[in-house]
């Protein structure tokens, strides 16, 4: 069971997820402190470690639009968020898959902050609202990268195979 800790609308940009002024910080071990830096309350809770791993961020369409900055994915991967959105912007989705951030495409998702969710392979059940929503599976080509444990491991496998 996972709890929704943040509910967002459409077109959440990477400038909201990880503001540009922190882009000189690149290490995945250091980026989480700036996640949603301008959502002051949420960022403070995150830094106080008040948010449990596997907590859920729910968003509308086009989540992660804008910059290709990988910090926007690594800053959410560190605290082990699950991101459920109606759909994602391309580069953000690919970065998330490459880094192993759990992103779930759920076109009809309805959930509010505080709701309890049960997430399985093909659906999200909102236990609080007693509704369930189908998950759109990732394209097979992307799933292969997840199955390998991320793009670094996947590339390493390919490199060794080419040797």
């Amino acid at each position, binding site marked *: 069971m996972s709890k929704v800790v943040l509910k967002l609308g*459409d*077109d959440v*940009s990477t*400038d*909201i997820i990880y*503001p*540009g*002024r922190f*882009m*000189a*910080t*690149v*290490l995945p071990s250091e980026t989480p402190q700036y996640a949603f830096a*301008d959502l002051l309350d949420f960022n403070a809770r995150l830094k106080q470690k008040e948010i449990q791993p596997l907590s859920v961020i729910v968003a509308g*369409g*086009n989540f992660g*639009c*804008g*910059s*290709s*900055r*990988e910090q926007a*994915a690594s800053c959410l991967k560190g605290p082990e968020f699950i991101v459920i959105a109606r*759909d994602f*912007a*391309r*580069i953000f989705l*690919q*970065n998330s898959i*490459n*880094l192993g951030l759990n992103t779930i495409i759920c076109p009809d998702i309805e959930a509010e902050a505080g709701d309890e969710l049960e997430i399985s392979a093909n659906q999200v059940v909102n236990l609080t609202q007693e509704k369930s929503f189908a998950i759109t599976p990732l*394209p*097979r*080509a*992307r799933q*292969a*990268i997840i199955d390998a444990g*991320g*793009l*670094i491991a*996947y*590339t*390493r496998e*390919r*490199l*060794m195979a*080419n*040797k």
Partner: protein
Amino acid sequence: MGMTVVEKILARATDQPSVKAGDVVEPRVDLAMSHENGALVINQFQEIYQGTGLEAKVWDPDKIALIFDHRVPAEGAKTATNQKKVRTFAGAQGIHKFHDIRGDEGGICHQILPENGYVRPGQVVVGTDSHTTSHGALGAFAFGIGATEMASVWALGRILNVEVPTTIKVNVVGEFQPYVLAKDLILHLIGKISAQGANFKVIEFHGPAIRKLSTSGRLTICNMAVEAGATAGIVPADAETLRYLHEEAGVKEDVEILGPDADAVYDQVIELDASQLAPQIACPHTVDNVKSVQEVAGKVVNQIVIGSCTNGRLDDLQIVARILEGKKVARNVRMLVFPASARIYLQALKAGYLATLMEAGAVVMNSGCGPCLGVHQGALADGDVALATTNRNFKGRMGNPAAEVYLCSPAVAAASALTGKITDPRKGA
């Protein structure tokens, strides 16, 4: 069944007679660009090789470009150290398409690649920057990727598991009216189809109005294709592309051009008439919140920014100088100008444009991304309103979530600099 330009490029880059939208391919990469975030790419690249017993050498140093532009000169020790790491790596790996912080050959990556002839029609170009879509202006398939994906490209020379995108065809007829520019066309299109209207798709630009546009205008259009969510924008190469490459980009050898098949299959076709366009403004805080200039005229502005990979080229500076000539920037406005590259800076200097801008009260900064992404020069105060020729107006984009950013063409920005309010350049121009 015919192919779109991008399908043709991907077929060539995978040695197949044809590919179609939805296929998964692993194309060879012709050019792989990073800026300061090359520092993160280097980390990821080295991690790939850990435990393999292989030496971490890039697949082809001639196909990698490294360009400093986001924070030049460095604004702090962390950036300076990242830049040093990239500089050292470029030297050790023999990467010659490296543009350091220099007054002769530096500049914004999306200007440096075209003006040096690094980008050619038919190439597959990837960059760790979302505005890599710019290079579609030269008929290449160019798109943004993340740092880890770039590390994988550096290792393998291919980009893995690419799904061939579907394509939206945009056909533009009619003549642009005076003071209506390429920027107005792309803002209008983004407003029409929304910030997610082209998600995971390519936008292929056609029509007489596109054919008449200079490469500079095409760069503006393809640059902002990503603001409609597009994977890439592309203008199939033509005589203007060859002119640009041979006359401006120093390319000596013959260049092959590649167009779509007449029976290519498109996801959607959009018809636009340039003659019907008014100057456009993208209002806070999304790029698709587009209005005509008349709807927001009179809005008081505090900072005007001319420049960026979208609109910092010579023709942009020329129209700004023409509008400002002999006049003064309003007292309530700080006007910052960032030529897109050192080469353009020098050209604008020699043409007298920079003197005109400075005499009018503008501050001419060195080439670079400047305040566009809020990391460096020209941050906004709480409650400030900026009017910029840049490409994004997301909340916080120019360094302050309590400020507002409006996006427009260089002509609108220049006319507004004189009045201190958003102003239609067509009136009294």
